[in-house]
């Protein structure tokens, strides 16, 4: 019994900071439960959200989790910067610091950026291609619930059992059982494995959706560029994630089942883990960045009121980036010393990526050239992105120079570089997309005025945080140190960097406030097309009805909706064109499947094998039950659709 208690509650989960977080989670959870009970919303929650297979709702749920992830990851970042603000600080101890930088990185990549891009995939892609849902709606819900339960599992670690502490990359031998005996790393390995299964399924789902479910006439070269970016990203997902699956699985086998893959003893090789991890890890960078490029391509065309400049070159460079991204992974570990030939090869391949990326930058600029630019918040993020990403990319080329990398490796120069591209590229893009598609999701606009405040705080905060870190790296400050003495010349720069992080935090708070404010003061957008958009999602009411398109559109041109508007057509449909529509039916199976994986995951984390096996048996039972599923759809009668469309004012005549 005492052994069990020691396993569940090691000293690292009993620190005042952790207990405070526990209390606030408990209070917040209780508050939500009470509120739902009081408003009698449990049935609504189950029917409308938990069992839904509607891509629009799944997108919103991804978004909520991404925001929670951004909050947790951001809080971790603020704690890290607070510790480093002054020399010899005692705010966080060394173990505590290790845990926080591990969860910061892991959450930001897997539980903030990934769900955020999947949120936008779900919200935009079917509407943009004129489809009624994704190819496999139930699988889409399964992907989501695997992710959601993995999110909960990972975030449980600091409450029960202890956080992972080997960095977001979880390199062997830092994860080796002998050196890292707690359950923290198990949480990392198993939570990422569960969400990874869902991620591969999402990749397959969107590939099939885009390849096979486009509206009539929407040939490949007439697809919106965001759809192109999702197509390419999905193909990266299905070929990159298996490497992560293997890297995590082998580490798990080492820790839980006594294999000798990454242990020095018995002939194992820790560097093989690093190799596998980055076979996934570098394409992953583009899995995050390409959708952001897609978003910018939509935003820049819409708010410049011009066709995207150089569309074929944009498509070509997306494909080129994706192919090159498979061949650059060694640049993450040049210092392993693989030899001159290997390092030279991967250094050159890395630099090549700058070419297609440069093409894209110029095309965005030429799209704005001569356009009538509107300075909306979505457009501001795009404008901030271009110089930010160019600088981040340029420092990336510096890191690709192998002899230089031997100096920069694992210094704050590297930390500054990847935050420069991941925040300046990905997060700016996601915020841009958030503001752009928010009215499509919810039917009202976010406050532009508050959005601009959030933008300026975040942007200035970003540069104040990360520019000093380049200098710190050049002055020799290495990554992941939790303390530094006086007199190294690092103190002022660190203090400035911390102040910048606080400014970014304020930007985030303004954003959240703005979301609440905009909801309370919402004015419904009845047009469905508040930005005078160019692509098909803006031809629909906001939010779109369950079946999206009462009559499936036919496309003749790129920027299909813009062309329709030029020809004087509206989004309205004729009553006689409307027929019955077959839609997928809600199902509790995805939620239960996520829950079963969660139970199995808990069992595996603590090596409670009966529980793990029971969880997996539930998983198999649910899968087998799916093979016998007959009634997975329902038909909406034409009359009901006519009524819905009439109520939305969408019927002609």
């Amino acid at each position, binding site marked *: 019994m005492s052994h069990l208690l020691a396993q569940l509650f090691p000293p690292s989960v009993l620190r005042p900071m952790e207990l405070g977080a526990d209390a606030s989670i408990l209070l917040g959870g209780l508050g939500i439960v009470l509120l739902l009970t009081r408003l009698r919303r449990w049935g609504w929650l189950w029917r409308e959200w938990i069992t839904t297979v509607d891509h629009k709702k799944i997108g919103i749920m991804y978004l909520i989790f991404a925001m929670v992830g951004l909050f947790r990851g951001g809080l971790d970042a603020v704690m890290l910067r607070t510790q480093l603000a002054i020399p010899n600080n005692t705010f966080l101890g060394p173990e505590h610091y290790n845990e926080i930088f591990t969860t910061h990185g892991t959450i930001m990549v897997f539980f903030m950026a990934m769900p955020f891009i999947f949120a936008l995939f779900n919200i935009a892609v079917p509407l943009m291609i004129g489809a009624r849902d994704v190819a496999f709606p139930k699988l889409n819900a399964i992907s989501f619930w695997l992710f959601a339960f993995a999110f909960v599992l990972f975030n449980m670690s600091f409450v029960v059992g202890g956080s992972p502490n080997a960095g977001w990359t979880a390199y062997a031998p830092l994860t080796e059982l002998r050196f890292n005996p707690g359950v923290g790393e198990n949480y990392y390995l198993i939570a990422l494995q569960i969400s990874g299964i869902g991620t591969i399924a999402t990749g397959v789902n969107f590939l099939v959706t885009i390849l096979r479910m486009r509206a009539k006439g929407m040939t490949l070269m007439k697809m919106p560029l965001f759809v192109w970016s999702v197509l390419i990203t999905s193909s990266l997902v299905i070929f990159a994630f298996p490497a992560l*699956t293997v890297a995590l699985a082998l580490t798990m086998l080492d820790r839980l089942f*006594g294999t000798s893959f990454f242990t020095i003893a018995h002939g194992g090789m820790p560097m093989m883990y690093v190799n596998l991890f980055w076979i996934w890890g570098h394409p992953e960078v583009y899995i995050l960045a390409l959708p952001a490029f897609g978003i910018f391509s939509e935003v820049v065309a819409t708010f410049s009121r011009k066709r995207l400049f150089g569309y074929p070159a944009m498509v070509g460079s997306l494909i080129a980036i994706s192919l090159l991204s498979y061949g650059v992974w060694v640049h993450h570990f040049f210092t392993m010393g693989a030899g001159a030939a290997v390092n030279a090869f991967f250094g050159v391949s890395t630099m090549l990526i700058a070419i297609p990326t440069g093409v894209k930058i110029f095309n965005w600029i030429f799209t704005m050239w001569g356009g009538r630019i509107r300075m909306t918040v979505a457009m501001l993020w795009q404008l901030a992105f271009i110089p930010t990403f160019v600088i981040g990319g340029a420092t990336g080329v510096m890191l690709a120079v192998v002899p230089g990398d031997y100096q920069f490796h694992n210094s704050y120069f590297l930390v500054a570089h990847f935050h420069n591209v991941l925040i300046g590229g990905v997060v700016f893009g996601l915020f841009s997309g958030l503001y752009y598609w928010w009215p499509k999701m919810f039917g009202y606009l976010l406050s532009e005025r508050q959005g601009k405040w959030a933008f300026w705080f975040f942007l200035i905060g970003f540069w104040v945080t990360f520019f000093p870190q380049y200098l710190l790296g050049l002055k020799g400050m290495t990554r992941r140190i939790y303390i530094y003495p006086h007199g190294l010349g690092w103190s002022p720069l660190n203090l400035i960097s911390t102040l910048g992080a606080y400014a970014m935090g304020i930007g985030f708070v303004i954003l959240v406030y703005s979301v609440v404010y905009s909801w309370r003061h919402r004015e419904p957008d009845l047009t469905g097309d508040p930005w005078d958009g160019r692509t098909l999602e803006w031809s629909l009411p906001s939010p779109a009805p369950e079946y999206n398109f009462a009559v499936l559109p036919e496309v003749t041109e790129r920027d299909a909706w813009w062309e329709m508007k030029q020809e004087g057509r509206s989004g309205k449909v004729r009553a006689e064109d409307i027929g019955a529509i077959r839609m997928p039916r809600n199902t509790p199976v995805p939620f239960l499947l996520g829950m079963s994986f969660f139970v199995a995951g808990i069992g595996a984390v603590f090596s409670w094998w009966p529980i793990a096996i029971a969880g997996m048996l539930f998983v198999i039972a649910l899968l087998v039950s799916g093979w016998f599923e007959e009634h997975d759809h329902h038909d909406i009668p034409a009359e009901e659709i006519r009524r819905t469309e009439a109520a939305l004012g969408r019927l002609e005549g």
Partner: protein
Amino acid sequence: MTVQAHPAQQTQMPLEFRDSHETLGILGFWLFLASDVVLFACLFAVYAVFHGRVAAGPTPLQIFHLGPVLTETVLLLTSSFTCGIGIFMMRRGRTKALMAWLALTMLLGLAFVGMEITEFTTDVATFGTWHQSAFLSSFFTLVGTHGGHVSFGILWAAALLVRLWRQGITQATARRVYTFSLYWHFLDIIWIFLFTVVYLSGKIT
């Protein structure tokens, strides 16, 4: 350029390709297989890097016996053939024949898994567990992952047989049997490479 599939061709298409919505499942399954190719590639890469790192444990030469492995190979190749005949029968609408060939496929798969388990347990009894060396770890993981896939396929075939028995050959069941056959032949391909890269090259000195 746009080439429209000829309407007459549509009616000649096999049953599993006639419902546009069902065919999404076929493409989706192919993409999953393409992803699984990369999963196995990573395990092959691990094996290729670790096969010489035997530490104090047995070497490939000591542990591999081509006799039983050849039997396993023939079992799996035959099951791939019977599965192909099953699809051939399905396209002639012969439910009973399809079920018989599918059942035979499943039994051959069971025999394969049985032999593999025997091989593994004998290995462990003779040479000790995978803890001993990176080579053993990567060998058991690579071959075991394939064996796990086959076991899952057996479960899948059993479920299909139940469904065929209850409903016969419909667009929905035909599509499912077809995707199962893709999975089964795919596992056969993986085994060919396992046989070559692991067992045969283990005997090259």
